[in-house]
């Protein structure tokens, strides 16, 4: 037997379900432009009869309406992990690229003010002294261009050193951010697991967690594996950063300045075990590479330029004789970009003469001017350094630009899977609206049938 009012119940369940579906559509439209939002869909399920037959259960063969079984969140775990990998590589290359940009600004080549021009001016000054060995003005000008050149090299080293310190600070703050995020992801893991157990909505929490994990990937190249309980395990270099409701911390160790970095490289460790963290992509990896390889490497190259300059000029200078007839002293002191300086300010001490005895010979100054073009000299060493930086910067730029396209594509794929398409939402809205209207119509019809039965049957 069919219950008199069973039709009303089924129709009511349809009204509820379509209201819920329209609510979900509303939520989707509201978040059409929310970063990291995943579209949601109400999953409807028809309510059938009893699955277990019993003695007094009756069944007419018609179902009892519809029910909302779940609100599904559209997310593709594979695309997510692809996007995380591409973002990590992208921010790694961006990090390196910005470092090369700064180094190139520091070089300021090719210009008429860079170190190359200062070197040229320096060698020219020696020729001027060759031309007028007795002229104190030419000698003073030479000492001045020497000071300018040494200061230029000092400034280059200073620039690299302060850049190193800046990047060191950035690494520390990036690692702090990683530690913060790891804690928050662990908290969200716990919330999601509890919500799932209690049957509460957790989609928005999961979206929020995905955004944080993406940021973690950008910072450290972290990977994430979804677990069956709804939690997300985040790993860096194969070691777990977040597992369930627990998170671990990273610490930065090692040198505090460019000078210390050669003996004590900057290191990244797990605070609990003290083991090193293997980071191969993400901003942190770019910072580590900058601190341990890029900047110290170029700083060593600048040191080499300074060392070659000081060595060649000093050797030749000591072979000559100054205006007082004495054997030349070293022209430069120091053998690194940081320490190089002109040894004296007295123009008479410039050993321009190749002959002893205080004459006006310019042979030695000429010989020093001739050091400009020698193979393995300071000019060539410096030009090689600049060309090397240029080539590395160019290849990083190109890689970063290619990576930007890959990141955009990966993002497009993720948005494709989980983003909100307004056309689709509008179509669904019409669908749900019509469904609601039809259910209401059914209800009106049933009502009218019942009216016939109750008010017009057997009356008068």
């Amino acid at each position: 037997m069919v219950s008199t009012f069973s039709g009303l119940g089924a129709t009511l369940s349809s009204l509820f379900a379509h209201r819920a579906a329209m609510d979900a559509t509303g939520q989707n439209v509201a978040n059409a432009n929310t970063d990291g939002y995943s579209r949601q869909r109400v999953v409807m399920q028809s309510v059938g009869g009893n699955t277990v037959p019993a003695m007094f259960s009756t069944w007419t063969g018609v179902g009892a309406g519809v029910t909302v079984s779940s609100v599904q969140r559209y997310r593709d775990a594979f695309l997510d992990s692809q996007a995380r990998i591409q973002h990590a590589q992208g921010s790694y290359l961006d990090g390196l690229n910005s470092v090369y940009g700064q180094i190139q600004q520091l070089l300021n080549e090719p210009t008429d003010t860079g170190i190359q021009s200062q070197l040229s001016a320096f060698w020219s000054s020696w020729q001027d002294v060759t031309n007028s060995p007795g002229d104190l003005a030419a000698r003073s000008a030479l000492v001045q261009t020497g000071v300018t050149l040494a200061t230029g090299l000092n400034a280059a080293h200073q620039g690299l050193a302060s850049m190193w310190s800046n990047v060191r600070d950035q690494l520390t703050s990036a690692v702090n951010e990683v530690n913060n995020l790891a804690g928050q992801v662990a908290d969200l893991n716990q919330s999601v697991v509890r919500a799932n157990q209690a049957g509460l909505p957790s989609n928005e929490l999961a979206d929020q967690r995905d955004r944080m994990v993406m940021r973690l990937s950008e910072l450290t190249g972290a990977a994430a594996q979804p677990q069956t309980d709804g939690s997300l395990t985040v790993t860096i270099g194969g070691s777990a950063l977040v597992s369930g409701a627990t998170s671990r911390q990273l610490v930065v160790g090692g040198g505090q300045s460019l000078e210390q970095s050669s003996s004590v490289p900057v290191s990244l460790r797990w605070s609990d075990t003290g083991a090193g963290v293997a980071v191969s992509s993400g901003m942190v990896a770019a910072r580590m590479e900058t601190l341990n390889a890029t900047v110290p490497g170029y700083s060593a190259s600048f040191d080499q330029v300074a060392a070659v300059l000081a060595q060649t000029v000093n050797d030749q200078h000591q072979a000559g004789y100054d205006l007082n007839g004495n054997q030349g002293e070293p022209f430069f002191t120091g053998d690194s970009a940081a320490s190089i300086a002109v040894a004296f300010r007295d123009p008479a001490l410039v050993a321009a003469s190749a002959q002893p005895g205080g004459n006006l010979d310019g042979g030695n100054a000429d010989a020093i001017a001739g050091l400009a073009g020698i193979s393995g000299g300071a000019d060539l060493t410096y030009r090689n350094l600049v060309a090397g930086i240029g080539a590395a910067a160019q290849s990083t730029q190109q890689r970063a630009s290619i990576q930007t396209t890959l990141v955009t594509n990966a993002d497009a794929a993720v948005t494709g899977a989980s983003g909100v398409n307004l056309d689709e939402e509008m179509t669904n809205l019409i669908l749900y609206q019509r469904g609601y209207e039809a259910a209401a119509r059914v209800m009106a019809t049933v009502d009218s049938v019942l009216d016939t039965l109750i008010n017009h049957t057997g009356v008068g």
Partner: protein
Amino acid sequence: MTTPIRATQRSVAATTLAGLQGNLTRLAGLQQQLSTGRLISQPSDSPGGTAAAMQIRDDISQMRQYVRNADDGKAWLGTVDTALTGSVTQLQQARNLVLQGMSAGSADSPAGREAIALQIDNVRGALFGLANTMHVGRPIFGGTTAAGAAYEADGTYLGDSGSVQRTVAANTRVRVDASGPATFGDGPGNVFDLLSQISADLRSNPANLGARLDELDTVMQRFQAAEADAGARYNQLDLLGQTASDRITTLQSQQSQLEDIDLPLTITELQLQQTAYQAALSATAKVIQPSLVDFLR
């Protein structure tokens, strides 16, 4: 840019934005090239070109120095030439005076020879002045001496054996002074002693004048040789200086080819890029705007 299987308004907006961004970046790059006029503004624009540009700058600076050196050397050699020409004139005059002293008319007149001897003394004084000719405060016949003169009044050489040289090309040094000992002489047999002896012979021993005339001719040949040598070196400096100067022009055009933009090409590229950007903008404006919402009433 690949199109994902399922497009959404947001993904279309993101990919369109990325495309526009790329367009604008290229446009900005071209605009930077146009406004600075430079193809290479940092090493990464062209690592090889940067190294070459730096090398060329270095070479230009070197060549400018060579031109300066050559000009400076020419000034030295000009002074040397004037001094040597003056000396030859003086010696020529001395030779004429000796001939005059040897001629019949004066040979018998002590008073006439005394007058000639006085003129010879004047020539000696003039030569002494020429031997101490200075150029920018340095005696040009004194080698590299720091002393203010090349010769003392008694004919003693004060200079040294060094020489003043100018580098005017790679590994090419040209001497720009003249050797005092090789012209005026050093020690016995120097030109001042010779003239003193001629003067003495005129006064007391005219018979010896014939031998003195031969000695004077030898000295004069020395001076003429030195003069010719100075002239040749002047020419060499002139030539090498001109070569360096021409090289600067060549290097500057090379530098310009490396570092400067090709204006017509860049402007054409900018135009093309602008057209592409505008096309992308108008297409975007058409694609982004409509959705089903516009058509539901």
